[in-house]
């Protein structure tokens, strides 16, 4: 995208220094042995083009300008509403992940990107598969409402298996809650850019992730409603290679573009300049 090249000199590929992530010893894309430090400098994209999953902390560092991140509502916590016991008590799951330093499946806040203020929210697949929960929905809805009210562009990064089973029907209701708030963004003529990363499925794909003004998929990301395992179970169908891939969704009109992570920030900066 030649038009974006003019941002190349002033927009860095990441706003800050990315945290380390858990990596396999070899790249699943090309098989070469991985050098974590080398990969970190190229925002966890292998030379072969394989994109590794990042957590919320990584995405915040990538998107936000250095020292601009102001997290909001980080203190709201999930509760075991359904008294979920098997195969593992939900409360235990949540406590264990929290002890590991994760803060729910969605984190949100304000920051700048190339100097422009945005509301930013990112899923974290490491927290119960990035599942949409009451806390996730609440953080998303509040951020969307604030963005709509203040006229600040909204940027989302998704990585989610869908609604969280352990919060039952109230997790399902989060889809309506956040979509209502997305409606406010659109009514307020506020730009909303959604970055769909691997994987984005179920209640997250069927709610805010695909409702942006511009839907951007990462190369190789699996995106869909029903996961391939369940499709096979339900219909005994053999799914062709590449089914539900980012390119599949591009060809079927569900996303506007497939953009490598190294170009993402430059693209967002360009879009913010044009739309904000």
């Amino acid at each position, binding site marked *: 995208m030649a038009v974006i090249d003019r941002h190349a000199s002033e927009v860095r590929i990441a706003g800050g220094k990315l945290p380390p992530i858990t990596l396999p010893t070899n790249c699943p894309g090309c098989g070469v042995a991985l050098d974590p430090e080398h990969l970190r400098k190229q925002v966890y994209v292998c030379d072969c083009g394989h994109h590794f999953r990042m957590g919320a902390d990584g995405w915040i560092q990538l998107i936000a300008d250095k020292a601009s991140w102001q997290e909001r509502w980080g203190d709201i916590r999930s509760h075991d509403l359904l008294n979920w016991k098997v195969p593992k008590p939900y409360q235990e799951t949540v406590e264990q992940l929290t002890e590991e330093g994760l803060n729910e499946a969605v984190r949100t806040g304000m920051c700048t990107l190339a100097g422009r203020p945005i509301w930013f929210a990112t899923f974290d697949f490491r927290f119960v598969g990035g599942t949409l929960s*009451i806390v996730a929905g609440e953080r998303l809805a509040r951020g969307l409402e604030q963005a709509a009210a203040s006229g600040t562009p909204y940027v989302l990064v998704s990585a989610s298996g869908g609604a969280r089973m352990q919060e*039952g029907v109230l997790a399902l*209701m989060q889809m309506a*809650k956040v979509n209502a708030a997305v409606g406010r963004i659109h009514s307020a003529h506020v730009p909303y850019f959604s970055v769909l990363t691997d994987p984005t499925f179920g209640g997250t794909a069927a709610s805010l992730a695909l409702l942006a003004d511009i839907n951007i998929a990462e190369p190789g990301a699996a995106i869909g409603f*029903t996961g391939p395992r369940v499709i096979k179970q339900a219909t005994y169908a053999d799914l062709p290679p590449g089914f539900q891939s980012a390119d599949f969704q591009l060809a079927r009109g*569900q996303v506007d573009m497939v953009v490598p992570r190294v170009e993402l920030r430059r693209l967002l900066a360009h879009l913010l300049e044009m739309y904000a």
Partner: protein
Amino acid sequence: MSDETTLTVWQVVELARNSLRPYTLDYIQRLVPDFVELHGDRLSGDDPALVAGVGTWHGRTTMFFGHQKGRSLKERVSRNWGMMHPEGYRKAIRLAHHAAKFGFPIVSLIDTPGAYPGAAAEERGIAAAIAGAIMEWFRIPVPIVAAVIGEGGSGGALGMGVADRVIMLENSIYSVASPEAAASIVWRDNSRKVEAAEQLQLTSRDLLAMGVVEEIVAEPKGGAHADFDAAAASLDEALYRHVQPLLVQPVEQLLQHRYERFRYIDSLLHAEPHFGPKID
């Protein structure tokens, strides 16, 4: 009330799925005998899993929607077991705008295991179709009342369930995922469906307690299938009682209340402090 106190959760699930239960068309026949069915999403197709149309209900032209499962094998195949494809959600939203144009209130009857979990639905954008429908329902400037009459399965049900009032028949269920799907996700084993159902809290009483639905509609003794006419009469009475106050509400207030109904749907925290996050 029936002998529901003796039913296990799984028995309620089976009752909600009982193929002898009245389906959407059985209720429509009784509630709006002059029903005119409307078809098609005006983009690419029609979805037989969702019945849509207009009829005179309590003296007023009303738009009815409902999942239709089908009883004979042939009918089930043609209705796709009440599992909607993207065309169904697009048809619903087209006709919701149609209803809004003429000021017709909307009644939506929910009875689906979920949206169709197959490759064809994925290829035509089922996720975006559901997402778009859920968002669009919040802008439809006429009263909407929804009733779960059997199975309320996942996003497929919610895609037809954004309403000003949502009620449930006594032996119906409403869940984030079918017990089989939840078992498959949590245990990676869908044979654990009974345990999953017990944990999901998906019965009408559970949903009323969580504040997700406004009312439980009592079914005839033995269940809705025991007496279609009586079941239809109770549903009719409850639906109309809920729609009446909405008919005189100013549109802005109606839409604001619909927004707030879902925005704070997990906020039974006002009554029960352990429910949901605290609002700061």
